[in-house]
């Protein structure tokens, strides 16, 4: 791989990272990208009292975990592919092993299991921060190279396909 390829690839990941940080729904929930190491993505969310699943309970609505897994999985496609071609979620399945509570931040760790030019298969675990046992796990299938604009961030320059 030439040096210019390396640079372009890392730019692609950085743009996808920036894009993920700018997603309005991600900002609403307070999601942040913690790291992208190779193909492995880590995102963090600090639960808030308005994310609770039932008045008087401490458990977080599973829909919040779902959003976190979906975001981390999408970024994991770009981390693995190192290209900014548009993607679309075909499906996402979540297993909720136990309840997540407001006491600790949630970390989503997502990585690609298999990548082709057309499809990406992603797996994602969600952990309470500091815990080795996941509270939930998801697997998602993404279509790659869908029709649509390439990513651009409000900070970055427009990229032509």
């Amino acid at each position, binding site marked *: 791989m030439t040096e210019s390829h390396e640079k372009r690839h890392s730019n692609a990941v950085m743009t996808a990272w920036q894009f993920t940080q700018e997603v309005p729904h991600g900002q609403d929930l307070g999601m942040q990208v913690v790291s992208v190491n190779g193909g492995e993505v880590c995102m963090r969310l600090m639960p808030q009292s308005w994310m609770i699943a039932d008045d008087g309970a401490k458990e977080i609505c*599973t829909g919040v975990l779902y959003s976190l897994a979906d975001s981390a999985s999408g970024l994991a496609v770009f981390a693995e592919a190192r290209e900014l071609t548009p993607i679309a979620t075909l499906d996402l399945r979540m297993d909720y092993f136990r309840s997540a509570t407001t006491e600790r931040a949630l970390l989503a760790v997502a990585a690609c299991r298999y990548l082709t030019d057309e499809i990406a298969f992603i797996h994602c675990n969600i952990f309470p921060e500091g815990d080795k046992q996941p509270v939930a796990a998801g697997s998602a299938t993404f279509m790659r190279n869908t029709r649509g604009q390439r990513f651009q961030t409000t900070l970055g320059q427009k990229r032509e396909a």
Partner: protein
Amino acid sequence: MSQRIDSLQPGPDLREGNNEYWQTLLERIPYARHLGLQAQQDSSGVWVHLPYQKSLIGNFMLPALHGGVLGALIEITARIAAHGKGAQASYPRILDSNINYLRSAQARSTFASAEVVRQGRRTSLVQVNCWQRERSVLIASGRVQLLLATTAGNQ
């Protein structure tokens, strides 16, 4: 609509399939309040309305709603539907959900209806369909498996 037995049921009609009952259940869920979910009803049944707001956007270039927003709408709708069937005091717990995205979700109102596929003694399987402009044009569908609340010590 069938007649209510008013003398035995003061207050809102709390029977399954009634939008006042669904609305009562939705209002007990803080995250459902944050999303602004509302129960709606016509002669064909009851469904949940997710009003559009900018904070639901997942792709600001299309623009399209975040897949996780549809996930939350589907899961909460399934929970309400399973709760209505089971009539427990506390909500059922979601075990898993499997959601297929059929079309891009546009920046507009979204609706979700539920059908209880199987009601068991301990679990409930609920199918949820989402649409926007036209009810027959689905944008997402999901299946949610729930564990029903049981009294303490009961298995």
